[in-house]
C-alpha cells in the first residue's frame, strides 16, 4: 500500500505541489492525468526522491519517510521499494540490454550473477526482447529501449513501478508495442502508477484515475466514473479537449 500525506513541493517561491494526499491499494494500477505543468511528473518523482519534497509523508510498504529532514538512508530505503520507467528510457548506454536489467540486481540487491542473469533473461522474455539481450541501447529502437527499461524496473520486484510518461518520446508506430507490454504486466497484479497522456489506455488499463491540475488533485476515482461522469468542471473540460475527435476544414 502506498500512502502520501500532505506532500508539498516548491522550487524557490514557485509552488509546484500543494498538500497532496493520496492512497493507493496493493495491486492497483493508478493513472495520473492532467495538463502539462500540473505537477503529475513531479509528484511521481517525489515518490522516489528524484525530487526532494519540502514537506509531507510518504509510506510505501513498510517504509515510512517524513520528507522534511529525510536522510540518505531513508531515501535509499524508499528507492529500494520502487522502480521507475522514464520518458526517455535512460538506459545505461555502456551496458547491453541484459546488463541493464542485471545491474540493480547485482549491485543493489546483491544477487549472485547467475541468478541475476536468469531473472533478467526471464524479464527480457516477458517484454518480448529475449533475442536482443546482447544489444546495446544504441542498437535498439525507442520502443525496444523502453521495453528494456520496463524489464529493468520489473526485475527489481519492487513494491510499486512508477511510469513517467512512458510513451511520450516514442513515435506513434512504437507506442502500441510499449502499451501492450504495460497492459500485460498490469494484468499480473503489479502495483503501478502511470503518468500518461494516453487517455484511452488509462481508461482501459487502470483501476484508479487521478486528475491533477495546478499542483493539486482535482478529482480521483475509478476510470468509469472519472471518464464517464466527471464531477468537476475542470476535469470535464480537460477530458473533452483530450478525447474529442479533431475535424479539419480546409
Amino acid at each position, binding site marked *: 500500500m502506498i500512502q502520501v500525506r500532505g506532500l508539498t513541493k516548491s522550487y524557490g517561491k514557485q509552488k509546484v505541489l500543494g498538500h497532496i494526499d493520496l492512497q493507493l491499494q496493493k495491486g492497483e494500477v493508478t493513472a495520473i492525468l492532467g495538463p502539462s505543468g500540473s505537477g503529475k511528473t513531479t509528484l511521481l518523482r517525489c515518490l522516489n526522491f528524484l525530487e526532494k519534497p519540502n514537506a509531507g509523508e510518504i509510506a510505501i510498504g513498510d517504509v515510512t519517510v517524513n520528507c522534511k529532514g529525510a536522510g540518505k538512508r531513508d531515501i535509499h530505503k524508499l528507492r529500494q521499494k520502487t*522502480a521507475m520507467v522514464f520518458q526517455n528510457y535512460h538506459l545505461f548506454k*555502456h551496458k547491453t540490454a541484459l546488463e541493464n536489467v542485471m*545491474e540493480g540486481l547485482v*549491485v543493489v540487491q546483491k544477487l549472485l550473477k547467475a541468478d541475476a542473469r536468469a531473472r533478467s533473461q526471464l524479464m527480457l522474455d516477458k517484454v518480448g526482447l529475449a533475442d536482443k539481450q546482447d544489444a546495446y541501447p544504441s542498437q535498439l529502437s525507442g520502443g525496444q529501449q523502453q521495453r528494456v527499461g520496463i524489464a529493468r*524496473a520489473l526485475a527489481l520486484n519492487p513494491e510499486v513501478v512508477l511510469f513517467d510518461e512512458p510513451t511520450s518520446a516514442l513515435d506513434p508506430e512504437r507506442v502500441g508495442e510499449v502499451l501492450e507490454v504495460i497492459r500485460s504486466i498490469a494484468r499480473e497484479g503489479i502495483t503501478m502508477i502511470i503518468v500518461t497522456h494516453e487517455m484511452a489506455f488509462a481508461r482501459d488499463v487502470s483501476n484508479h484515475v487521478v486528475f491533477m491540475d495546478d499542483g493539486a488533485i482535482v478529482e480521483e476515482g475509478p476510470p468509469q466514473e472519472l471518464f464517464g461522469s466527471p464531477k468537476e468542471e475542470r476535469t470535464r473540460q480537460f477530458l473533452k479537449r483530450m478525447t474529442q475527435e479533431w475535424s479539419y476544414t480546409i
Partner: protein
Amino acid sequence: MKLDPGFIYDAFLQLLSALPMTLLLTGVPAAGGLLIGTGVAFIRHYRVRGLHLIVAGYVAFIRGTPALMHLFLVYFGSPVIIDFFARKLGLDFNSASIPILYYVFLAFSLTAGAYLSEFIRAGLLAVDKGQVEAAYAVGMTALQAFRRIVLPQALAVSLPNMTNVVIGLLHGSTLAFTVTVLEVFGKANIVANQNWKYFEAFIAAAILYWGITILLETASARLEKRINRYHRGGVA
C-alpha cells in the same frame, strides 16, 4: 663533421638500458595523475563544499605554469617542508633519505593530474543526468552510480585526450634529466659526450621516443575501439 650512421645503431642499443627508467617515469605519474585527476574531477563536478575552490586553484596554477617549474618546486620545496614537520614532530627523519625519483614521481603526477582532471571532467559532463537518475531509481547510492555508470562512460569519452597526456608524460620525462635522474634523454647526452657524436646519439633517442609513442597510440586506438563498442549501431 660527418654523420656516422653505424653509431646511431650503437647508441640506440646503449639507450635501451635507460628505457625502463623512462617507462617508469611515464607509467607511475600516469597512474598517480589518473588518481588525482579522477578525485579532482569528482570534487569539481559535484562541487564538494570546501574543497572545490581549492582544487580549482590547483588546476589553474598547474595549467598556468610549466612542468619544469613544478618539478623544481617539488624538488627544492618539499625537502624543506618535510624537514620542517619532522623537526616539529620531533621525528628522527631527514628528507635526504628520500630518493630523488620520488620527488619526480610526485611532481609529474601533480602535473598530469591537473590536465587529466579537466579531460575527465569533460567526460563526466558528457554522461547525461538521466542515467544517474535511473541508477538512483534502481536503488544505487551516489557512489555506486558514479563508479558503475558515470565513470566508465566518462573515461571512455576522455580516452583520446588521456592518451595525449600519457604521450606528453613520456616526452616530459626528459625533464627528469635536470635533477640527475638517468633516463633515455640523459643517457643520450652521456653517450653523445663520451663519443663526441651528438647528432647520432640524439637521432637514436628520437627514434626510441617516436617508437614508443607509436606503440602508445596503437594501444590507445585498440582500447578505444573496444571500450566504445556500445556506440556502434545505427538506429537510435
